[in-house]
């Protein structure tokens, strides 16, 4: 009689080998790129999962850039072709995706994904393969502390500098008018928290006392406790380091408690087109930093807004603009260096970007050694049901209202 378990075990081994063999055969063959072919730009984006909404915005921005560039004859006489992979908002995947794009698909250029969490691992892959890595979304300070030499952030300012104009303005007020206490609530996310903490650091240095300092996880849906803390502290001003929905929820929760600060600043959320409706139009005086407006006077922006609107039916938002900016930076480098492929060319591209200033839809951009852009965000305020630029003074559409009216 045969021993059953042993036999099953051997049968197991057969299956395992077959499966491994199949797995080994499943890969794509690398394609050889020649210079007559299109410039393939590889991107991994979070099209599903936690970051899928902004991820899709970034995708539209890239698509608009490719179309607008190709309609004008492409770069170096070659057309732009995007190769987009979905990383499911997952860092494991984003790394695998860039491995695939660079190693297997042999793309000519890679550009960045969305969200700081994904930018850092992705940038490491690009760095180790010596690829230029311009990215639209890694705004947190950490991105620039990793020692990356090939990374450039294609936006006016990193998260911590978003409120610089507001901080300057507040600290310049006469002592009697200056807010004395501030409450901060920030999402536990490098970008969102960075915005609030950037302002916090500057105000604390200027003598504004922090009375509430709350950090909440990204999945928080119930803001009543945080709101209760802020409301009972009666802080002069409240600062929310928010993405979209958490900002809305926090504002509603604060309004439920009838908290009336002299100043309320929230990142990201107030610039969204759905914001006013989402909080029942009680927007009076809410501030927000922004890196992009459709009305920005820069030359390429008019073209972008016009053609983007024609392509997608609605004007671009910040995510779209950042992706477009990324494309503009890469395009400028390719045109100047006269090449776009893996290998030696990438070094030329990196050197060019580091040494030059690029005109984009968000204004002229230049970078320091770490790839950090050197600028600040504009500050917008909801005035009379509309959001308007109030700072800096030379770009303002309206005056900053402080103390803000009741919401």
């Amino acid at each position: 009689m045969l021993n059953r378990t042993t036999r099953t075990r051997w049968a197991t081994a057969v299956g395992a080998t077959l499966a491994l063999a199949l797995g080994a055969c499943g890969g794509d063959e690398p394609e050889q790129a020649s210079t007559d072919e299109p410039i393939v730009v590889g991107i991994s984006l979070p099209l599903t999962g936690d970051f899928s909404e902004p991820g899709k915005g970034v995708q539209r921005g890239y698509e608009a850039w490719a179309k607008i560039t190709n309609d004008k004859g492409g770069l170096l006489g070659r057309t732009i072709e995007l190769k987009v992979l979905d990383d499911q908002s997952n860092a494991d995947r984003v790394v695998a995706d860039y491995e695939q794009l660079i190693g297997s698909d042999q793309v000519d250029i890679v550009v960045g994904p969305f969200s700081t969490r994904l930018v850092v691992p992705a940038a490491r892959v690009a760095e180790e393969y010596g690829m230029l890595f311009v990215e639209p979304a890694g705004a947190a300070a950490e991105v620039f502390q990793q020692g990356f030499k090939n990374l450039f952030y294609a936006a006016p300012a990193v998260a911590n500098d978003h409120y610089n104009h507001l901080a300057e303005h507040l600290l310049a007020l006469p002592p009697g008018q200056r807010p004395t206490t501030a409450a901060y609530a920030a999402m536990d996310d490098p970008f969102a928290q960075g915005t609030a903490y950037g302002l916090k650091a500057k105000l604390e240095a200027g003598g504004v006392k922090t009375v509430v300092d709350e950090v909440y996880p990204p999945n928080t849906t119930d803001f009543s406790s945080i709101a209760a803390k802020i409301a009972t502290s009666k802080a002069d001003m409240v600062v929310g380091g928010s993405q979209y929905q958490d900002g809305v929820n926090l504002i509603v929760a604060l309004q439920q408690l009838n908290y009336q600060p002299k100043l309320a600043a929230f990142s990201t959320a107030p610039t969204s087109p759905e914001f006013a409706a989402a909080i029942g139009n009680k927007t009076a005086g809410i501030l927000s930093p922004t890196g992009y407006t459709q009305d920005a006077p820069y030359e390429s922006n008019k073209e972008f807004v016009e053609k983007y609107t024609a392509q997608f039916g609605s004007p671009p938002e910040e995510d779209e603009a950042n992706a477009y900016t990324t494309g503009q930076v890469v395009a400028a480098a390719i045109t100047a260096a006269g090449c776009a492929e893996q290998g030696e060319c990438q070094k030329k591209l990196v050197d060019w970007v580091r040494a030059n200033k690029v005109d984009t839809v968000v204004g002229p951009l230049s970078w320091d050694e770490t790839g950090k852009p050197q600028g600040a965000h504009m500050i917008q305020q909801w005035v009379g049901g509309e959001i308007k630029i109030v700072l800096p003074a030379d770009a303002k559409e309206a005056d900053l209202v402080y103390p803000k009216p009741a919401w």
Partner: protein
Amino acid sequence: MPSASERLLTPTRAAGGVALLAFAAVALAYPSIAPNPYLLSVGIVVLNYAVLSTSWNFVGGFTGYISLGHGALAGLGAYGTGLLVTKAGLPSFVALAAAAVMVAVLAVPLGYAALRVRGASFVIVSIALVLVTLLVFQSWASFTGGSRGLNVPRPFPGLLRPEHHRVFFYLFLALLAVALLVWWLIDRSRFGLGLKAIREDEDKAEALGTPTFAYKLVVFVVSAFFTGLAGGLYALWFGDLDPIFQFSILTGSYMVLMALLGGVRNLFGPLVGALLVGSALEYFKVEFGNTPLHLVATGVLLALVVLFMPDGVLPALGALFRRFSPTTDSSIREVTAAELAAQRTGGDLHAQSRNG
């Protein structure tokens, strides 16, 4: 007689031996065959899955206790290794070993809470473990880096990326071999027999004098140790850790799915499951890339396995193989299964009529 047949070379066993050798040969040669670093890195990810689900199978396969929280143990191994390297300055592989030991030590109180009572509480604790580690590692940002992530320095800073992949492919392969060897040793030991008895009928095993709680705890600790090693090795390979990916409930559920699909009673079940699920995940991604339907596909696959194939594909394949093999062993049955069922019902009815 089984004792005699263990030394016999039958066609089935010979075929199995050839298959095992072939698998080992393909695996060893893979880094040279793989056409590009990307496929090599895919190979590492699959091997990592295989090590994880084999480690899971120490608990799941032997005792039948299903843990959905092994993802957290792997995450603890990864963060433990990363923190020991960055904060304590330990050499990479010393940190890896130390972190795995720490995960194993942590498994003692966890197992104490989870295994003292039967069934449900183990699953509940395992899920809670993922959720609580996620909270702690996100919130304790000053220590873990929180959502900013933790960067683990490479153990071999001089290596180019493809070389780095190649080295880690072999490291993962070696870890897989060790995990399989230990599983195999336990499978044929007195300890393993006690564990399987627990899986079959825990009351009965205890009534026969098996210290069930101690056995379950020990094997849980062993399982945690290997899971921690796999997580730590992954950290050294991958480099960037982020709580929401390290402490994800999906990681744990993939381990279960892989082991279950391959067959939890088989040494190579989790490995086969890892190869199948690894390719399936890749396929789902290609097929349903832009939608969350890959979640649906994963869920449906898990439900189908649970409902229709709880023993996995390997036993099914084994049965198929046996059908074509010359020897049959139906002679041991004195009654058919149908008769047996009838007798059972009869017995039950008998008992019930007395109850009435």
